């Protein structure tokens, strides 16, 4: 593959540095978590995450080198392949912890629902670039996008993984609202949202309803998620301004929280590094998101804008929902914190997303087909 010199000149170092910095903080944090956690079999978490990071970086560079227009052109194909991977989870039929979310290939486990987040963005981009309406979308033209997002949403909800399904929906609405929706549709969205919300209550399973009720009153579920939220708040708060110190989180609260390395990673970090440390990381995330928005804004074509926007919003919501959750502001929904939560699928998919961001950024001076 011939590497155009212009691409190298325009290589987005700041983006790379930001992502690497956040990921390394993630590794450091995981080291602390593995230090205090009773051993899970195999290599320690931070080593595994490191390997995933490397794989992710490799894919990031690949994603950056292919012209994103090419990727968008085959958007639907990529989407379908990803959808098939998602469906094959059911065919493989392995049930873990009461849900079917993972595919087991060549000794590795992998969550297709994570990939789906990315490929849905790409597919949406393709659709929007080919069907742009200047006055804003009306319902009829939104049918296909609804289907594009709706199918994976529904499949993922069947796994059952309501959190990720909702996440996809939020991504979708963010992008669509940004691109523009005409007033009538907007009103329709709002009213159907208000009407559907109580309806959804009936479809929720008991434990899912419990989650929501517990969120409103953590004391309600002392055995389950109520316990987690209270412990998380204590961990975060007890960090104070300066934190308890690396490896010194008393962590007696979180020691046996099962989601310590995934949902509640930031609680651990906040306990050890305090307000100062936590805010530094928050600022780094903010910088990343703003940088992504800048890339989107500077892109010369609609496809670039949408891809960059989609990825940036993906990262934004990931951070906002997860941090909000561990602070007790949002219900426990199982959305991982980008780059910090342990998880190969999440890390790799995010890195690929960042690769696409780089892609758009590097080519902002080109008007190639």
């Amino acid at each position, binding site marked *: 593959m011939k590497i155009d010199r212009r691409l190298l000149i325009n290589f987005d170092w700041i983006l790379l540095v930001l992502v690497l910095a956040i990921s390394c903080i993630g590794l450091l944090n995981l080291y602390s978590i593995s230090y*205090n956690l*009773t051993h899970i079999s195999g290599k320690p978490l931070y080593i595994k995450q490191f390997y995933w990071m490397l794989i992710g970086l490799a894919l990031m560079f690949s994603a950056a080198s292919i012209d994103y227009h090419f990727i968008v052109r085959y958007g639907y194909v990529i989407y379908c392949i990803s959808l098939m991977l998602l469906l094959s989870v059911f065919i493989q039929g392995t*049930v873990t*912890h*009461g*849900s079917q979310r993972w595919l087991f290939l060549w000794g590795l486990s992998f969550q297709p629902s994570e990939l789906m987040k990315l490929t849905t963005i790409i597919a949406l981009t393709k659709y929007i*670039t*080919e069907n*742009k309406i200047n006055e804003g979308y009306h319902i009829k033209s939104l049918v296909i996008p609804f289907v594009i997002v709706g199918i994976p949403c529904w499949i993922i909800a069947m796994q*059952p993984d309501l959190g990720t399904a909702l996440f996809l929906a939020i991504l979708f609405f963010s992008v669509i609202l*940004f691109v523009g929706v005409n007033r009538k549709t907007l009103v329709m969205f709002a009213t159907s949202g208000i009407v559907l919300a109580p309806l959804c209550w009936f479809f929720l*399973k*008991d*434990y899912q309803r419990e989650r929501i009720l517990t969120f409103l009153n*953590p*004391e*309600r579920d*002392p*055995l389950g998620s*109520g*316990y987690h939220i*209270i412990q998380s*708040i*204590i961990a*975060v*708060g*007890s*960090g*104070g*301004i300066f934190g308890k110190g690396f490896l010194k989180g*008393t962590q*007696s*609260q979180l*020691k*046996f929280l099962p989601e310590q390395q995934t949902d509640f990673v930031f609680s651990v970090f*906040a306990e050890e590094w305090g*307000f100062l440390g*936590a*805010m530094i990381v*928050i600022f780094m*995330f*903010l910088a990343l*998101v*703003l940088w992504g*928005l800048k890339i*989107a*804004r500077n892109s*010369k*074509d*609609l*496809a670039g*804008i949408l891809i960059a926007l989609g990825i940036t919003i993906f990262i*934004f919501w990931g951070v*906002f929902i997860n*941090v*909000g959750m561990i*602070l007790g*502001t949002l219900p426990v929904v199982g959305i991982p914190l980008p780059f910090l939560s342990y998880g190969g699928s999440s890390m790799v998919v995010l890195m690929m997303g960042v690769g696409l961001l780089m892609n758009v950024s590097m080519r902002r001076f080109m*008007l190639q*087909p």
Partner: protein
Amino acid sequence: MEKKSKLTTYDPGEFRGKFNILIWLVICAFAFLGAKMWYLQALQGEKLSQRSMNNRIRLQEIKPLRGLILDTNGKILVDNQPSFDISIVPETAKDVKSVIKRLEYVYVERNMKFSNTVTFEKRRKPFVPIKLERNIGRDKLAVVETNSLDLPGIIVDVVPVRSYIYGEIMAHVLGYVGEISTLELERDLHRERKRGDIVGKLGIEKSTNRYLMGKSGGEQIEVNVSGRKLDVLGKVESIPGYNVMLTIDADLQRISWDAFQGKAGSVIVMDPRNGSILAMINKPSFDPNLFNRGISDDEWSKLLSNPFCPMQNKAISGQYPPGSTFKLLIAAAALEEGLITPDTLIYCDGTFTKGDRTFRCWKKHGHGGVDLYRAIVESCDVYFYNLGAQIGVDTLAEYAKRFGFGSKSGITIPGEKEGLIPTKKWKLKRFKEPWQVGETISLSIGQGFVMLTPLQLLRAYCALANGGVLYRPRLLKKVTTEKGQIVEMFHPVKESLLPISKKNLEILTHALWGAVNEDHGTGRALRRSERDVSGKTGTAQVIEMVQDEEDKDKEDVPYKYRDHALFVCFAPYDNPEVAVIVIVEHGGHGGSAAAPIARKIIDGYFDLKGTRNILHVAEKMS
């Protein structure tokens, strides 16, 4: 090119405004997060830090009481009893080794053994007790309690444990419980269960587990360094499981158990009016109480290696050739197909020839001229050979299926088998050989490939007795809360009708009456002075032996080759209300081995009824 221009050209100003809004929204969102963090870490930091450092928050699960299982009259069959465990909380004990030594000493003083060696894991949740001994007896309990001041950190946990009051008599129906396995956890898609939960593993305990389970409660308590409760942060009461009432009658069950003689076999008692199962016993059996705190390896391998299969519920999963009890089906088919009438006479000289094979009747020199009534009463084989040969295997299979044979009845305990009804197609598929006429002949007297479970057979006879209705076998009567409110009622379910006209049914039941009450009836061992029992004997061949009236003496034939003895019956003749099936594995003749057992049970049933009526009247009068 059209498409490309869409990709490349747009108005940059279009989104500028939107981006600005977005940027501000993002900044606000992050600011909000930062503010909450400031609130927690700067403003609440001190207080929360206190909580984390000096105090501990502990979760205590409040396990629910499992529901009771009752018999049809409300007698308790399965109860919960307290079982006591000794645990130690290292943080409270301070010097763990010396406390344990003192405990050992206290035991030894009274000639008791301390049955545990404790290893402490390095990393464990603080203040969570470590189990030392499980299921200690009351004497040990007394010892520990009286010495509690010298044993800091030692606590007694009360764990509710199942108590099967009737022990092995009800084992197969009730089942047993155990800790949930990893496989069962994985299958629990709704996350209703967790590790350490007790679930039913067999029988009613398993099939009604979701009623019996109840719901855990929990307490979030704050404890100080010594482990003393400071505050209850939240509490959710446990909800006890529901009580399940069965149709089983405990007294009748015991009568059936005591009546059964033989090494192995099964008895079922059913009410033909509604399919309710009044008793179901299997021998040999096992004691479900063995499983309560986890069965020992020794006991388990003893159960598994017993050649008479004590763990098997033979009533629903034992598959046997029905022998002569199957003749009723042949008779029904022949009547319905119009091949015979009640007056049709067939001559039995003791043999029947088809092609190049000769089949014998059990009566060596034959019965002479036989009509349908006599054929059933004296169980003439040749009569039925004739019918079978005319009807053919596939038509017989049709009728058999409509009698409920060859498929599961849907009883609400796990482990039911479907039995086997052979057809031409089946044999081709299974053995890759065509069906032989000789096999139809064997089939006509219930031998050969055909297999039924005792439940299927009894249910069919109940249908003959009640006018032709096949009921779904009914074990559950109702489910109530611990306070007695009804949660669910289980009504009798009519599944289908037998393919027999009312007139023909009467002919058949009349013959069944004769089989018990006529002087030459094969079931005469069951005849009561009330002359109200009807039934049919059956002798199921285990291996094909020479058919002879003077059969080899029982003792000459090795046990495992002896025929199975079967008997099905119902009473009274008008409006039958009880039906019994008895199978004695390798018991020999149905008439001699199984019928007397059935007789005792029928007698027991009417005795009980009588006694209960008297009590009832007495109650009403007082």
